[in-house]
């Protein structure tokens, strides 16, 4: 194994070097910004920046909104993408058109997608017309807290395709023969799902869960494009806080907020990782 690793090293080094140079070093270097006061003397202030940021009501609002949005969007994305992937998997070999076209929103530029969304959810747009046709009242989607709904829908629409592809490839990689053997042995659909499908799909599911949360945490440009730097309270995310701090040239607060959020995300992913291991053990009948 050692020999194999040594052989692989030349191939890994360029990528690792890039990762170190553009991610690792800045990540570590940013810590210095977060523990100094940013004045001309640039004095060390310990964890004061972290304390003040943590206590800042706008940081708290942004963090709360970021977590809320991700807890809404990520599970929805996960569930919908799995269901859609399962459906597309059943449609084989037909449905090639749907399998291709499901990725299209992911490939479209965000600004173009946003413009379409703005037209759809405009006060006089098609969505409101449908609502009024169904007997409801028009809603000002683009102003106020109602903007959350178009943002969530946009997130789902844009990211669904990629997650579907991941699930689909996981489903398609399960050998058909396993299902055939199971059927021959008299296993029910439920048994097959829990004994064959899920254990083999869990690693991909974990990946999709990670991707969903990462994408959800990154919801910002849609809100910024429509609501600006200071949208209504329910839409003000942590990214807004960090962006505004950056524009105010307060790099200390930006880095402190970013590291605290990174810590929260690491904890979350740690939790997901543990959940994955537990789920796999249970599905494989271990422990």
């Amino acid at each position, binding site marked *: 194994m050692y020999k194999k690793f040594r052989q692989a090293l030349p191939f890994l080094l360029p990528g690792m070097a890039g990762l170190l140079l553009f991610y690792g070093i800045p990540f570590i270097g940013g810590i210095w910004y977060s523990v100094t006061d940013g004045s001309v003397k640039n004095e060390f202030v310990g964890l004061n920046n972290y304390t003040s940021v943590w206590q800042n009501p706008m940081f708290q609002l942004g963090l709360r909104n970021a977590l809320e949005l991700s807890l809404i969007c990520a599970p929805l994305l996960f569930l919908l993408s799995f269901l859609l992937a399962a459906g597309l998997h059943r449609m084989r070999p037909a449905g090639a058109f749907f399998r291709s076209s499901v990725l299209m929103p992911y490939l479209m530029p965000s600004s173009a997608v946003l413009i379409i969304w703005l037209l759809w959810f405009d006060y006089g747009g098609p969505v409101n017309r449908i609502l009024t046709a169904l007997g409801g009242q028009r809603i000002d989607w683009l102003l106020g807290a109602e903007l959350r709904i178009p943002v969530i829908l946009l997130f789902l629409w844009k990211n669904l395709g990629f997650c579907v592809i991941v699930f689909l490839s996981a489903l398609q990689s399960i050998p058909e023969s396993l299902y055939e053997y199971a059927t021959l042995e008299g296993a029910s659909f439920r048994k097959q799902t829990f004994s064959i499908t899920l254990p083999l799909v869990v690693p991909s599911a974990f990946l999709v869960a990670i991707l969903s949360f990462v994408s959800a945490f990154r919801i910002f440009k849609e809100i910024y494009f429509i609501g600006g730097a200071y949208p209504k309270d329910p839409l003000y995310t942590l990214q807004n806080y960090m962006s505004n701090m950056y524009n*105010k040239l307060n*790099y200390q607060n930006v880095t402190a907020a970013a590291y605290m959020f990174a810590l929260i995300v690491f904890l979350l992913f740690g939790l997901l990782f543990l959940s994955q291991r537990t789920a796999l053990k249970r599905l494989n009948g271990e422990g």
Partner: protein
Amino acid sequence: MKKIFALILAAMMLLTCVPAMAGAGDQTIVHADNNSYYNNEYIQNVVSAADNQLYAFVRGNNAEILRVYSLDSGEHTDYILRDYNDGDDSSLLDWYEITDEGISLKEDAVREITEEERYNTAAWFAWNGSIYAIQWKNEYNPETESQSIEGGFVKKVKLEDGKVSLEDTTDIPRLDWTEMIQEYGEGWQDSKQLESTTVCGNTLIGRSWDTNGYPTLEVFDLTTGFHRELEVDENATLYISGDSILASIEDYEENSISYTISQVDPENGEQKELLSCTIEGDGNYMYGMVYDAEKDTLYYIMNGEIWAMPSLQPDAAAAVCDCPTTGNMFFLQDGRMLIWDSSTIVIRNIDPATRGTETRMIVNAYAYGGGLEEAIFDFANAHGDVTVVVKRGGNRQTILQDMMNRESETDIYTMDYDWSEFSALLNRGYLTDMSGNAKIAADNAALYPYIREALVKDGQVVAVPLGISGGAISIDRKAWKEIGGTEEELPKTWNQFIEWLETLPEKVKDQNIGIFDSYTSDSEFIHRVMTQILNEYEARLENAGGEFSFNTPELRELLERVQKVDAEALGLKAHSDMEEGYYDYEGEYKEPLIQIYNESTMQTWGGSSYSPLLLSFEENEQPILPISLTVAFINPYSTKAELAAEYLAIAGRKLWQDALYSLYSDMTEPVISPYYEENHERSVKQLEDVKTLLNAAKTEQEIHDWTETLKSYEEMMENEEEYKWIVSPENIADYQARTPCMRVAAYSFVSDMVKDEKSAEAFWSMLDGFSRGDVSAAELLDNIDSKVQMMRLEGN
């Protein structure tokens, strides 16, 4: 050869200690600072002959002068070209004859225009070591009441006894001037002027414009007089210098300019594209281009420096020396570059190899501040080995990153005081203490208190003001008195202002005065008043401390009242009547009583008869007038902090007079117009003559005519008195009286709301909606307040 010339010249310059020299070979021939502009003398053209002299054609208030500069010594000699005051000593009594029958015009009263006076000069140029003028003649035929032009007369310049005489010469035949004559209406003609003339061999080339205002290239053969007019692209800017004839087409983008530069062949007008390039960055304009075909290098002025682009490769372009002005450029015989504009002639050695070592001081002027270019000349006199480069524009958001990187390339920055970037620098102690410079300290002490306290932090002087401005709703107090208004009737609060507006229609009825300017619309009025109220309210909140909120019943009620003002009664146009942004103006124009936006700082040149209405939000509360300040400060990481302070000490007092008087409390001396004494003396004499003639008048008609004449002369003298001041005692007193109400506008939440494009669009859209009555005061203030509260909670 040129290098040898440059070296010899550089040595001579060093020995003779010509002032204002930075790199070896640099020279300042002349520079008139901002305030000497009032003497109304400006340079029209500069020509260089092969005699180590420069010929500058200067138009002054009283004369046209040919000023000959010696390149060796920098000294100059003036020769009068035309004296405007010739014959102006005549008296009215010389024109009229008083007899027992009455007054009659003398037969010889009307002086014949001399032959010389019929001639006008279209251009000057140097050829074969001599200076020539191209003239055209104006002929008026009183019988047909028509006028005609003849042109193309080439005269040789002779300098003698302090005068310029233009002599006929056979050196150059008369030039074909037919195409240079333009027709205007029936029987009227005018001649085109020729600018940026240059001689290439025996061909004279100059720039002119056709009747549509598009540039043309005029080419004259000096041996035959033949003329060719070459058309160039209507969007092209022509740069003519020696054998470099360039046409530049510029395409402006948001943060860049694309140039397509072509060389024009004067033989046939063919344009050969030399290069296409895009210059990035705000403020990076290419001026005064010259192409040296021998070196295949393009020279141009950009951002305070002369740049060289060898082989026409944009990537290879580099700055070769500083350049304190933008203007016309041409090569001198010795290879140096001469740059001139209406007030300045400088020479620069553009060969980096022979410039020697020099210290560069960089000024990054993110905000427009005066005095920076002006200070270069005085500073260079004291520090001949230091060049100052003033770069205008640029991205100010990089400044804090520069601070954190301890960037030392820039020595001085300028910013507006209310920018968030400046606020961040000020709060974090990035501004260098300049108290050690005695002049800066003294000037700081001389500032008005409200400005001084803004520029001192923890007892240290941290910035120097370079610009000041402020807006306010203003009233013509003289007109107000004329319509029977008193000072006591004027409003003291914003609510009183709304009530007072309602009384005005009756007040101005049957008067020769309007309430607002005829072109002001209802939405413009509301927009302007609302903006002023918001700015003053924010300043009030900052000043008072305590709860910081716009969404208060007091402000809501006030804005609602503003929105409900009876626009029609006040004579305001309905915004819906605007077509393509314009109104069709009908009816008699009336001077307005109120200006919805007028400068609240000192104004010069009689400035304005309008002075600000000082309005508070509550009775017996001091009003607050927010003032914008542009300041300069030293980079804490600059290695030339002392030099930078010296430079700023000069720049701080090199501002235009209105800025100086607005900033410094020691500027209390009124300034009379330089033309006043002379004009007044003449007017007094003429008035006396008219009175004499009126006394001698016999018939009723004569008495009536001379009485009318006397009235018009008296009105003229009243006007002279009104406009005799550049800075009047009343303006000074008026301004000093309102300085206690003024506050330097610091970081503004409302201004910061429009920093990003999306927020700005939403904000202005909401303000427009409010102006049009589509958005209520409550909605507007709720929107502003929610954002402001978020900004405040975020902190800084």
